[in-house]
């Protein structure tokens, strides 16, 4: 801080106070009183509405104070709150233990990308977009393209993520996603080749988490698979210098010397699509598709990825206080099998909706 000479000290002190033009000559005391009173009245209105809603929905003729304590109990003793529900084989959002949240898919969410999808599982929202670029393939694999997968958790997704404090899960989910997609064999890299040894496609898949409410990997994988299903490979042709350029739609007619290199093949053939389900193990219970609150209280997560032919692509259990016995593993795999059927039908519906347009 630069120091000012003595006469200007008063000026400096005045200018560092926040200047509110509307209050004019009002002092701090008046400002405080005004803000405090308005806050008090607005809270009164809000609380009044909330307690009214609780009275209506509660069906309990008991006193108001016991209803208000439910939220407090949930914050102070989260484990006991959830176990009270687990005893009745249900969860706080009225789901049975093995059921996942409502899932929806929208293809073509990003118009400027070559393939994109928006996936929502409950409140968890993921936006995936694929952009293709032509590159020279490396010498070790001259007739294969490549895929670069990146997963971002911007501060919009969760109050725990701030620009200087990146989320711990982001690089883990990113690596898990790239391992799963590349090892599942969903995409045959040879299909991404254009001219052997000279040109091949590089597909950049970017997945943005817009809302993080548990099961991040499931939603991200679903969005990635949907984006690849929606992918339309751009038409390219060789220009005069022998380089591969993208043919834009307007120049289609009249350029007979520019033969499109890949006119026929515009979509990727996806062989076996991987789908996943994350479960929580807690004592003897297995909870499918946890929310962020459940994940933070009961820390043992198991993520099972199966492909559409029933093969196990990945079983990921990163530690956790509860040990997974063979029976629990079998139960998780059975829950995942059911979920794979649900997700396949949701994806097929979304694809057929797109094709109708």
């Amino acid at each position, binding site marked *: 801080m630069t120091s000012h000479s003595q006469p200007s000290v008063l000026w400096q002190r005045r200018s560092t106070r926040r200047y509110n033009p509307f209050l004019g000559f009002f002092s701090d005391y008046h400002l405080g009183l005004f803000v405090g009173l308005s806050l008090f009245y607005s809270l009164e209105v809000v609380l009044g509405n909330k307690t009214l809603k609780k009275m209506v929905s509660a069906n309990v003729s008991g006193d108001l104070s016991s209803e208000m304590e439910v939220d407090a109990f949930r914050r102070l003793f989260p484990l006991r709150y959830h176990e009270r529900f687990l005893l009745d084989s249900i969860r706080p959002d009225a789901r049975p233990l093995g059921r996942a949240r409502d899932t929806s898919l929208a293809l073509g969410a990003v118009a400027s990308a070559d393939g994109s999808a928006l996936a929502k599982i409950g409140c968890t929202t993921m936006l995936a977009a694929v952009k293709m670029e032509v590159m020279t393939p490396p010498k070790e694999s001259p007739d294969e393209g490549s895929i670069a997968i990146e997963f971002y958790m911007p501060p919009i997704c969760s109050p*725990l993520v701030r620009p200087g*404090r990146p989320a*711990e*899960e982001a*690089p*883990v989910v*990113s*690596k*898990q996603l790239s*391992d799963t997609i590349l*090892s*599942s*064999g969903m995409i045959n890299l040879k299909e991404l080749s254009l001219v052997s040894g000279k040109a091949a496609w590089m597909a950049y898949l970017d997945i943005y988490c817009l809302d993080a409410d548990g099961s991040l990997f499931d939603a991200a994988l679903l969005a990635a698979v949907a984006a690849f299903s929606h992918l339309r490979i751009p038409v390219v042709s060789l220009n005069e210098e022998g380089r591969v350029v993208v043919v834009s739609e307007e120049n289609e007619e009249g350029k007979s010397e520019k033969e499109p290199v890949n006119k026929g093949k515009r979509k990727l053939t996806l062989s076996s699509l991987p789908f996943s389900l994350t479960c929580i193990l807690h004592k003897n219970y297995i909870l499918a598709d946890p929310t962020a609150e459940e994940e933070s209280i009961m*820390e*043992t997560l198991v993520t099972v990825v199966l*492909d559409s032919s*029933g*093969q*196990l*692509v*990945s*079983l*990921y*259990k*990163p*530690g*956790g*206080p509860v*040990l*997974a*016995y*063979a*029976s629990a*593993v079998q139960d998780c*795999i059975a829950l995942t099998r059911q979920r794979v059927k649900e997700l396949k039908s949701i994806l097929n519906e979304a694809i057929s909706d797109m094709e109708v347009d």
Partner: protein
Amino acid sequence: MSMEIGRDDGRTANQLRPLACSRNILNRAHGSASWSQGDTKVLAAVYGPKAGTKKNENPEKACIEVVWKPKTGQIGKPEKEYEVILKRTLKSICLLNINPNTTTSIIIQVVSDDGALLPCAINAACAALVDAAIPLKHLAVAICCCLTESGYVILDPTKVEEQKMKAFAYLVFPNSAISIIPEGSSHMEGELMEHGIITSVTHGVMSVDDYLHCLERGQAASTKMSAFLRRSLQSQAPNDSSRAG
């Protein structure tokens, strides 16, 4: 059914590479250990418990922090993933309520990598925690099981074998408990406690039955490894004349 799988170093399918564990090798660290399986060698150092926890962590429990240093190159996403897996695995074996509001740091340095790196690191970290006298519930033994193209399961692959394989799985089990009471070993619905998985990380596509075979083989091998761990940790315990017995 004798499976004659020609492994490059002449081992059978179930044979582990020679294991070596030494403790208390670093002077300044509160606990340290080095673990080697064949040519894969990892050094682990433990500093802690130190006062204070990080911002988002629960101050009523002890906190564990892991730093993974690769042999060469910069720290990237694979290292961050290993850090998170190690952190969660070690968190589940530590008794976190004993020293609340403290942080224990575990630093892993890869000395040489010849396959099965993550299991080697977990074993080294476990031995280092014992050396630092951090209170633990039980130890963890980690093993790598590979699936060949023909469907056989082999244990503890070298790097060359790992890259050739169809799929592999890193499995971590709790070590087997020796109890003086005959019915003492805890049973969970007919299964022994040491058959439960603490951590499982798989890579590559395999069928569900193959994975369950890997689990069985891993459980059998973990018994051998926990016997080795127990022997090596006991034999290096300092002879303290002030202690009873």
